[in-house]
């Protein structure tokens, strides 16, 4: 059974500097995978490589069995990949509602209103701030908005780049709880990049460890957590 997302021997560079070296990675249908590593290990680059955002790649990237490397970002998104980028990418000048509508801008089905309601269920604060300019929301609210917007795409695969960044722990727990629910209820596969290793390990079913652009370890969260050197380097124990 082929995985939903496969990376085979992916190299990636920004200009002259190569960041990823021969990365192999798989996300199964319905799976939740974490990509961990220190700062600068290439985690964000991996997500950007998948969506072809300003990175030159070599190697194969397959989604649903079809190759997507080299295709335009918007075409990759249309195949069913939602990306919550580093920095959130909120449309700051537009309202919360417009941000959400933009998530669904490519959809012509009738389920959009229903999805909005569901999204409000996960993140009620968005309904409260529906007509506010997105730039006036707090960091945490913008993070929720970014995730919600990606959900509105109704993607098969959700890429999240450091969803916990700069957020209060309680908020992060709530978001991660929601992600778990979404994964179960909507069968949405997820690839999560995180610096907060501990939380990620509790959430996902598979972990990859990235170090200076190479995958140095992969496996079940329990296995990774049990590894002494990993714990010392990444879990601060």
């Amino acid at each position, binding site marked *: 059974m082929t995985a939903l997302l496969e990376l085979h021997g992916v190299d990636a560079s920004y200009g002259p500097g190569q960041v990823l070296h021969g990365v192999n990675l798989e996300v199964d249908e319905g799976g939740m995978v974490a990509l961990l590593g220190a700062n600068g290990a290439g985690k964000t680059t991996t997500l950007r490589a998948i*969506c072809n*955002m300003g990175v030159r790649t070599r190697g194969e990237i397959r989604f649903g069995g079809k190759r997507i490397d080299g295709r*335009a*970002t*918007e075409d990759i*998104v*249309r195949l069913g990949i*939602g*990306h919550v*980028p580093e920095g959130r*990418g*909120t*449309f*700051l*000048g*537009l309202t919360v509602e*417009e941000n959400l*509508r*933009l*998530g669904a*801008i*490519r959809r012509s089905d009738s389920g959009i209103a229903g999805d909005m309601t569901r999204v409000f269920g996960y993140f009620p604060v968005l309904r409260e701030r529906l007509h506010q300019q997105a730039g006036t929301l707090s960091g945490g609210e913008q993070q929720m908005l970014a995730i919600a*917007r*990606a959900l509105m*795409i109704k993607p098969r695969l959700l890429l999240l780049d450091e969803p916990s960044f700069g957020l209060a722990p309680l908020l992060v727990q709530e978001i991660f709880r929601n992600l778990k629910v979404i994964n179960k209820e909507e069968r949405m596969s997820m690839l999560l990049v995180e610096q907060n290793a501990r939380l990620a390990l509790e959430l996902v079913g598979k972990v990859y460890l990235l170090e200076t652009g190479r995958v140095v370890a992969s496996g079940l969260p329990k296995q990774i957590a049990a590894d002494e050197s990993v714990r010392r380097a990444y879990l601060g124990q």
Partner: protein
Amino acid sequence: MQALLHQLLSGVAGGAIYASVALALVMIFKATHHVNFAQGELAMFSTYIAYSLITAGIPYWIAFVLTLMFSFVFGVAVQRLVIHWFRDRSALAAVIVFIGLLVIINSMAGFLFTYTQKGFPSPFAGQAWYGTTYLSPHEVGMIVVTLIVLAIVFLFFRFTRLGLAMRAAAENPQSSRLVGIRVSWMLALGWGMAGVLGAVAGMMAAPNIFLAPDMMSGVILYGFAAALLGGIDNPWGAPIGGFIVGIMENIAGAYLVGTQLKQALALAVIVAVLTFKPSGLFGRTVVVRV
């Protein structure tokens, strides 16, 4: 007092032209951070197309609509064929490309239609019922047509999906791609709409300033002043800037600096706005990345 009112209202009419041009400039600036120096020439060329249609016997308003369609396609074509290839270049390169376009379109018009001035008809009859002592029927028509076009543009952006997508693409191209929007086509559409706005301005202005390849050079100057005054990145500010500049042009021309220095006044406005408040009346401050 009568004279003042006349100048004021005339200024509003003239300002309608500048409002359209300013909005076209702002639309392109918002999406690309470039100023379309060739905006005037696009408008002029479209007006010549209208002229050709009308002299071929096509009724005015049909020619008007056909010209709008032409100007839309023309704008899209220019973006796709030329501008698109320079999207990542520096400001200097972009300016040079725009000047190149200006000159090409200007010479195309000169070649196809000659440099002799021509008259252009107004669809608003000289003695029509809606003329007043202060405004000729054409001036009333200018204002009404412009307001209708502006209203359509604003409603489009506010309430349609495509309008939302275009706004998104202008605001944050990267995030727009992440929701599946084809950003470069949104830019092309923006250019098409700017072409339409320019064509409206050209056709409304031509009866007064006469049709010639260089007819828009004065208008574009006021268009720049209006766009800057309203805030170069603010679509709401552009029409307001346009009307203010129109009124200012008339009042200052009649009472302050004389008609011969009206353009110098526009220059002064441009320099003053850029020096003291570059974001204009309603724009957001421009931050320069270190």
